[in-house]
């Protein structure tokens, strides 16, 4: 396992400098005790009324198998945090949110104290009483009122208490493309497709000219349903409607979903431009894209961070190079079309006691939120990542406000090493796109259901789309009715 307990002298030196920076900046978080690194024995403690007891905090780090450099960057941040809060001992674990294993971990109580969950799961976990109520600790944060309300809602229980905090990767689904393949196919990388028809013809051109699949679709582990829902939104459809009486109705047979499936069918069987693997999930489609085997695909707008951290996209990799990465807005067509947004919340394990909860909030504040709010932490975080060759500056949707986001980008401008100039297709419109949240009821289960039509269309030339959607509709409705 990546060594967490043996910081090298270089890391220690770096963190000393960083801590110096932090204490020098007046914008240090009020949550941090007013001690400097050489004053750890201070007995005056303004943050809490009694000496904080020693706490071990288990947190999540990165995807299993990520680059060593990414882990090094993370370890540095941990060291900085521990220097700030000497009574907290952080233990980090690799973590991948997979619908299939999360349940076992949750039931087994082996989830860390602070872990990450997608927006879609928060409500259910709260209802099941599986998340700790961190409302009190949350409201102690001075900026608790500055959050984007819509995002905060995702982590609130029916009692209005906060159980999970918007933490990172607030994304809108966007279109990712391989600029080198565009070049090779005779397409202009600075003029990516803006309608689905253009996507289709670009995919075909890439396939014909280079033999590489022009487009790919995730289809397994609930990601098929996730992307199908996103594709539905972009065509003006919705997969679910909330009724006035609090119940939900599934609307899977809407024209948008059908059009999305027919699009896939055409790409697969008429154009032969679809990457022919119906077992792709979020991770493996990234892997194939990073290996240069895919021309375009849709996924969260912030996927670049993962591509660089965990899937081997570097300035000189043999597959996709940094300069070849392109990001543009997902095509939006028709009235009511919107972009699916989601994100990751930080949750605290239900078994955490108050001391652990306190420590957890401090960690969430330090690691996830501070870099957005204060220049000092922002620079520190960016510096660490930059020094370890990790991506800085990937476009994400703001947790707080647009102004805050743009200000924070200004602070770290010198560290930004992602090819922003290749992402203008998305960044130019990201705040103006109409956004639609993920469906709120039985989300993951309906995503799982929808994996089936997606896989069927990709593997069976004669798949009957109407029948598949009818079947999914019936099953989805019964899920909504019971839950």
């Amino acid at each position, binding site marked *: *396992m990546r060594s967490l307990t043996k910081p090298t002298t270089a890391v220690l030196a770096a963190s000393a400098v960083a801590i110096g920076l932090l204490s020098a900046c007046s914008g240090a978080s009020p949550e941090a005790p007013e001690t400097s690194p050489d004053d750890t024995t201070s007995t005056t403690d303004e943050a809490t009324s009694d000496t904080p007891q020693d706490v071990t905090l288990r947190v999540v780090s990165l995807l*299993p*198998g990520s680059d060593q450099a990414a882990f090094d960057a993370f370890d540095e941040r941990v060291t900085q945090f521990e220097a700030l809060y000497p009574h907290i001992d952080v233990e980090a674990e690799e973590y991948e949110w997979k619908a299939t*294993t999360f349940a*076992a*971990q949750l039931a*087994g109580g082996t989830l860390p104290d602070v872990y990450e969950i997608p927006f879609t799961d928060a409500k259910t976990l709260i209802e099941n009483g599986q998340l700790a109520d961190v409302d009190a600790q949350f409201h102690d944060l001075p900026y608790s009122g500055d959050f984007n309300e819509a995002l905060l809602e995702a982590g609130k229980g029916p009692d209005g208490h906060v159980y999970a905090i918007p933490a990172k990767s607030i994304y809108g689904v966007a279109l990712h493309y391989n600029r080198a393949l565009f070049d090779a196919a005779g397409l202009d990388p600075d003029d990516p497709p803006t309608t689905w028809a253009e996507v289709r013809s670009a995919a075909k051109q890439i396939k014909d000219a280079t033999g590489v699949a022009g487009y790919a679709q995730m289809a397994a582990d609930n990601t098929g349903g996730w992307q199908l829902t996103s594709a539905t939104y972009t065509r003006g459809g919705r997969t679910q409607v909330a009724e006035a009486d609090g119940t939900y109705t599934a609307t899977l047979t809407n024209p948008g979903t059908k059009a999305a499936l027919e699009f896939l069918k055409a790409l697969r069987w008429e154009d032969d431009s679809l990457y022919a693997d119906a077992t792709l999930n979020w*991770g493996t489609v990234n892997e194939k894209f990073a290996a240069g085997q895919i021309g375009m695909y849709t996924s969260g707008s912030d996927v670049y961070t993962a591509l660089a951290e965990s899937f081997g996209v570097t300035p000189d990799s043999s597959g996709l190079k940094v300069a070849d990465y392109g990001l543009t807005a997902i095509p939006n067509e028709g009235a009511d079309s919107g972009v699916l947004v989601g994100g990751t919340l930080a949750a605290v394990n239900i078994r955490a006691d108050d001391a652990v909860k306190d420590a957890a909030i401090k960690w969430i504040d330090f690691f996830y939120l501070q870099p957005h709010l204060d220049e000092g932490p922002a620079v520190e975080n960016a510096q660490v990542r930059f020094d370890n060759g990790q991506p800085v500056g990937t476009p994400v949707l703001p947790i707080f406000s647009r102004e805050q986001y743009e200000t924070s980008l200004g602070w770290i401008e010198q560290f930004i090493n992602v090819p922003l100039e290749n992402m203008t297709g998305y960044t130019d419109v990201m705040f103006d796109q109409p956004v639609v949240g993920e469906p709120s009821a039985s989300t993951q289960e309906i995503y799982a259901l929808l994996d089936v039509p997606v896989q069927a269309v990709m593997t069976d030339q004669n798949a009957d789309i109407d029948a598949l959607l009818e079947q999914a509709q019936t099953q989805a409705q019964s899920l909504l009715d019971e839950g």
Partner: protein
Amino acid sequence: MTTTQTSTMQTTTAAPAGAARPLARRRAAAMDTLRGVLSIADWRRRSVRTGMGFVHVLLLLVLVVIGLGPILLLGKFAITPTQDILRAPLEVFPNGIAWDNLHKAWFDVQISRYFLNTVLIAAGAWASQILVAATGGYVLSVLRPRYAKALQWMVLATLFVPGVVLLVPLYLTILDPPILGTSLLNTFWAVWLPAGASAFNVVLMARFFDNLPREIFEAARVDGAGPFRLFWSVVLPMSKPILGVVSVFAVIASWKDFLWPLLVLTKPDLQPLSVRLPSLQATTDLGVLMAALAISTLIPILFFLVFQRMFLRGAGLGGAIKG
């Protein structure tokens, strides 16, 4: 998870009708005790010799291609650069050899650690199984207390329960074991302890002990040996063959085990190869992944080649189950 047993083959068949035959001919035929279907006379015929020879060569070819082929391919992929694996998998190193893959697999992907886990898990599972099967068989077969019959039936009953039924409740038992109070999840004990509950092993041992000559036990008892002495100094030394068989089964079963470790060892640090390798698929370069797979296969294969006889003897007695 559990293996089931084949009973020793005692079925007989009414032999094809045979009236009195010329004694000399029968005697000559009976002298060839090593024969199979074909007799010496059969082998003398040219057509049989060439026919069988041809068939055997064909069989050997098929076995090499099918049995050895994929393994050799794996070895080749292990040292081929990823792009070559993807573009020209069957060509012979068009762009040179990537010894790097092996280095990366061992150090970056840290196959060594998962390999160690696999070995530790196998060792503990082996110990657990030997302990339970040997002592259990001893009680059922030699000591035979009053409750032996009941015990035997209860053990046999578990043979008929497919592993699937145990999956969920065993998982919950691991989360909250009786007496202990702390969860065994993410400890090797969660794999070691349940491994011992193999009715197959117990029955094998008990049967074997049944066939040991009782006179030796009597003699030892007369000499004043208590049950412990009897077990340790008399029964066990005579049981080396069956211990070998059970050991081989135990190690192979543990090495292959996938679903159970997947459930109870969620911390990557503790996972054996079988659990860890699939989760590394997406984030690992294909060439390096192949190298990792190859390294994982090397030891079982070497182990097998060295202990061939024991493997094959043991495998012949027990059952090999698909799925």
